[in-house]
């Protein structure tokens, strides 16, 4: 596709359940980011993938959060045993990477509601 695609666009889940959020970056983009945006909050960095390097996981808020990027393309963010405070919009972005044009392009986000 032409842009960053995220699915699902909305997800309602029960507290304690696991969820998977998907991100399809722009083809050829080596860098991929996950951010979280809560109501009234800024953009909270979660995790960053750059090519074949080890991901920067420094923003993951707890060990319930994990992410992987398969084949250098699609990424999945997994939240285990969801809690109400996990409710937020999860944003994915991709870019050509730090050695090229570093402009990041964002997807529409996945709105997660934990009830």
């Amino acid at each position, binding site marked *: 596709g032409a842009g960053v695609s995220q699915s699902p666009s909305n997800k309602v889940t029960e507290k304690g359940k696991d969820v998977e959020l998907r991100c399809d970056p722009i083809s050829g983009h080596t860098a991929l980011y996950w951010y979280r945006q809560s109501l009234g909050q800024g953009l909270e*960095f979660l995790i960053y993938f750059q*090519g074949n*390097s080890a991901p920067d996981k420094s923003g993951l808020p707890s060990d319930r959060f994990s992410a992987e990027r398969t084949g250098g393309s699609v990424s999945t963010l997994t939240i285990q045993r969801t809690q109400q405070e996990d409710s937020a919009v999860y944003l994915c*972005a991709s870019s050509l*990477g*730090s050695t090229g*044009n*570093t402009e990041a392009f*964002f997807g529409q986000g996945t709105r997660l509601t934990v009830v």
Partner: protein
Amino acid sequence: AQSVSQHNHHVILSEAASLELGCNYSYGGTVNLFWYVQYPGQHLQLLLKYFSGDPLVKGIKGFEAEFIKSKFSFNLRKPSVQWSDTAEYFCAFLNTGTASKLTFGTGTRLQVTL
């Protein structure tokens, strides 16, 4: 740790007023700088960017930003705001010396009144 400070959290202006939103970043080396905008109900989109060259950068919709290296600043300006500029504005930077992540500020909510 790398960080970005946006000092104005919520700004209210009347149409035609001038705008300046502050942004300071924490790294002293070579950086790429960005302003992103999020209109109500829409996704984040790039407003303007600075990689190198002329420190005065012009973006879409009449916005501009000036990179002042000595002040570690990249303030966003617009001479005359419109009601349609109501949005949230995010400053971001990336340290080009390492394969570092794009770091965002906490955002500034701009409300333009008629």
